[in-house]
């Protein structure tokens, strides 16, 4: 069985409205974040992956299976969708237990798996209350529990941290990390970029239905040629260092840090710049640290999807 | 955080009068009213019969203009209670179908999508909300019932003279009151069902069910119990009895008295209103 999730030239149109267009992706195991503004196609991509909608063009394969094979696919895939609704009249426990019976599990196994999933999200006390009466955070947690109850290998999560308090957020992120470590594909979408930074192994940036960039953050950042890389250098003689930098043609801008103990440098060729820093250090100048400041999701998002990057 | 620029002020300009505030709902509901082509086409079709009646009135008064009727001096038909009863009956049936299209979509989407909270946290009461939603049906149905009816009466009066106008004033009053009664009953029924079931399509199905089931069960009661009281469940029959009495048509063959019909129909409307007010709430508590 393949270990990838593959989108092969996939497009989806809702009538005249573009959902996603010409998406080519190959998602490895680990935590992959879908990032993009509202309406960029993240949910469409997730719905395509899970067969809730069908592509207008192209092919999708999840671990070698297609969404046309639900009886095999959904043993391996769990989806925590954005839809905040439940079948009428079911308690949290019944929601998970009843749908586990659809897997063909017997009553005892379904019961055991249901309670295990409920415990994982910390909802044991509320499990026998109607799901429709839960608070927003509880609803999110029970949906998460429902998606992980059958121990899937691919977990697709549409804004899974919405409505969760900080403690539960941390626990949920820890759960995702654990699952990713065990070889699962965890694909989630989020607007909280600093969390995406912390937890993701790779990101897929989307805008206007197109995949703008994919890969690990540093790799994506290094490929954005038109945006000079910003690097923060902490040193004791910033003025002297600044005048040295101005001799280099790849240095676009040098600014003094507000505390006057560092420089913010923009360079169009980070590799040459780092070689330069080696020479500077070998020449005896005291440099405390050299760190890129814009190789995070926030910066990449701004460059690619912000005003300048909109297609 | 220090507040040092106290420049925020609430709006203090002119506001619209409170009494007409409910018409805001009508204005916005109207925009979605005729998005469906089938619905729009049907609404246009509803004007055909009044138009046909209008042409008939003209033809009736100007037979000599038509070579087909050359030599005929008697009118084709009498413009009396029966004429307006047929007009009212036909247009009322179309009004029912139109209500089944429009009515269910008025309250149920607001309940299903949690929009009622948004309405009721504004300075609008539940009664105004219901009035606003009802006004959609009232105004739409008025255009196909009493408005063309009055127009037909005016046209016939202009063709027949002032005497006819004065002697038959009860006809226009009957058409007006009869139409309003039917409009109010249909509106309350549609809104009550729309609020009760929360699904637009099921509300539409229930409207059909209540009309057909009511008539069917009425017949069943009459057949089984050898009585005529079964008609108390048939709202179309009750309305028809009331129209006959308002238009001073013959009442010999009616199964119930007009008083019984009025009471039954008003009780039906009252229970729809009760159900509606019970269901139109900002919050639903799930236990």
């Amino acid at each position, binding site marked *: 069985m393949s270990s990838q999730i593959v989108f092969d030239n996939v497009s989806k149109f*809702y009538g005249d409205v573009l959902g996603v267009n010409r998406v080519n992706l190959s998602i490895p195991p680990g935590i992959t974040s879908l990032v993009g503004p509202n309406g960029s196609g993240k949910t469409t991509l997730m*719905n395509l992956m*899970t*067969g*809730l*909608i*069908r592509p207008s063009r192209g092919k999708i394969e999840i671990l070698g299976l297609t969404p046309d094979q*639900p*009886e*095999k*696919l*959904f*043993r391996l*895939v*769990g*989806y925590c*969708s954005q*839809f905040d*609704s*439940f*079948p*009428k*009249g*079911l308690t949290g426990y*019944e*929601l998970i237990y*009843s*749908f586990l*019976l*659809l*897997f*063909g599990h017997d009553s005892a196994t379904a019961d055991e798996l249901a309670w295990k999933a409920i415990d994982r999200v910390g909802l044991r006390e509320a499990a026998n209350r109607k799901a429709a009466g839960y608070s927003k955070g509880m609803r999110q947690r029970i949906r998460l529990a*429902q998606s992980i109850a059958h121990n899937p290998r691919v977990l697709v999560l549409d804004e899974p941290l919405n409505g969760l308090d900080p403690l539960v957020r941390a626990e949920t992120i820890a759960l995702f990390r654990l699952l990713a470590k065990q070889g699962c594909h965890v694909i989630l979408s989020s607007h909280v970029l600093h969390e995406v930074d912390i937890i993701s192994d790779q990101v897929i940036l989307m805008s206007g239905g197109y995949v703008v960039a994919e890969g690990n953050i540093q790799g994506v950042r290094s490929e954005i040629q038109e945006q000079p890389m910003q690097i923060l250098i902490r040193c004791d003689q910033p003025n002297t260092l600044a005048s040295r930098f101005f001799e280099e043609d790849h240095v676009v801008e040098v600014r003094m840090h507000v505390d006057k103990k560092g420089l913010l440098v923009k360079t169009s060729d980070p590799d040459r710049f780092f070689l330069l820093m080696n020479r500077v250090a070998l020449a005896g100048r005291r440099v405390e640290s050299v760190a890129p400041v814009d190789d995070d999701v926030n910066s990449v998002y701004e460059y690619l999807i912000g005003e300048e990057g909109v297609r | 955080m220090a507040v040092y620029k106290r420049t925020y002020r609430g709006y203090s300009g002119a506001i619209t009068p409170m009494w007409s505030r409910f018409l805001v709902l009508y204005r916005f509901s109207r925009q979605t009213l005729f998005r469906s082509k*089938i619905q729009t086409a049907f609404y246009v079709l509803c004007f055909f019969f009044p138009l046909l009646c209008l042409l008939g009135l003209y033809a009736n008064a100007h037979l000599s203009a038509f070579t087909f009727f050359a030599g005929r001096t008697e009118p084709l038909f009498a413009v009396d209670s029966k004429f307006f009863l047929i007009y009212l009956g036909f247009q009322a049936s179309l009004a029912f179908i139109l209500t*089944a299209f429009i009515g269910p979509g008025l309250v149920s989407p607001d309940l*299903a999508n949690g929009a009622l909270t948004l309405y009721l946290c504004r300075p609008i009461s539940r009664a105004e909300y219901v009035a606003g939603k009802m006004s959609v049906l009232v105004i739409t149905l008025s255009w196909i019932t009493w408005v063309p009816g009055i127009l037909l009466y005016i046209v016939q009066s202009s063709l027949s003279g002032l005497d006819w106008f004065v002697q038959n004033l009860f006809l226009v009053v009957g058409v007006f009151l009869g139409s309003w009664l039917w409009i109010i009953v249909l509106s309350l029924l549609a809104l009550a069902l729309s609020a009760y*079931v929360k*699904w*637009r*399509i*099921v509300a*539409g*199905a*229930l409207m*059909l*069910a209540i009309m*057909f*089931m009511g008539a*069917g*069960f009425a*017949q*069943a*009661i009459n*057949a*089984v*119990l*050898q009585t005529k009281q079964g008609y108390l469940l048939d709202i179309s029959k009750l309305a028809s009895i009331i129209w006959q009495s308002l238009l001073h048509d013959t009442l*010999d063959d009616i199964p119930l008295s007009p008083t019984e019909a009025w009471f039954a129909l008003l009780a039906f409307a009252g229970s729809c209103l009760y159900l509606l007010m019970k269901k139109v709430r900002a919050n639903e508590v799930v236990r």
Partner: protein
Amino acid sequence: MNPLWIAQIKAVIRLELRKTFFARRGLWIYLLAFAPVALFTMQAIVENHVKGENPPAGARLITDQELSSIRHGMTMEEVTARLGQPAYTNTSRHPGPDSAKDVQVRVMKYPLETGQFNVVFEDGVVTGTWSRRGGIPFYKETYVFAGVFQFFFIRLAIFFGCLGIFMNLFRGEMLDKSLHYYLLAPIRREVLLVGKFLAGLLAATVIFTFSAALQLVAASLSFDASTISQFLYQQHGFSQIGSYLLVTVLACIGYGSVFLATGLLFKNPIIPAAIVLIWEAANPLLPTLLKKISVIYYLKSMCPVQVPVDPGMPKLLALLVSNTEPVSAYLAVIGLIALSAVVLFASSQRVRTLEINYTTE
């Protein structure tokens, strides 16, 4: 059959029954189904109450034509000229509208074939008439039951009840935004369709066959044990009861498959439901081939008692009553099941390509 499929179908049925049975929003279906039971029970109570009043020996029975010829405003002489002398007369005095003068009220009672016809006079002039039917013969009761069963129970109660139950299965889930839970489970969509259909069918058949059985019991309450025993053992009573229950089940199968399909195929299934209602009603008028594409065509043929056409019956009702091209029971069962199977097959093709797009609902 694949044991996994059986387990999955059972799981779907379990899920659906929780939502269908004892759900408050399904209360109207129960009211619909059990309204005829209430009706027949009331009839039995009334029949038992009035049965004791037999006409005196030799009294002339009034016909329906004579009864309907009596009008408000007629004098006593005019009434006795038409109907003859009454079997019983009651006289009383009541205060009039102006309390100075009392009003003499006289009620003349004439015997009917089953029951009594009363003519009320105030000050010698007819002001009202009313009939009290009682002691209806058993054979007539079977016609009354057949009429209510065919025209109200099948065509309206089961029709709208199945509309409510089966449309809920897919379209209702879409509106509730909960269908995606099913589509994200490892179940073939065709198996899901079968499971949901069987769940709806189970609910519908239990509700409506129970109602039909109770109606039969209620309709027989006003008859003595010997009459009922004679009907059951000598007049193929059990076979008739079995036929009514079978017709009920088949009606649920037929209408259920149709409404499941309309719920899948149409965003607003009310228009096709209205079309089906008109199609079923217009069945007697259709050509032979088109007649067969209808649920009521097969059901009518299987009803054990054909409702007789009265001369005074309205033409439309007479048309609905008549069964000019009856089909044998076996062919009717096979035909109906075949029709349902075709409809379900079409639904299964549709469910395979079903997409979730709640925002457009």
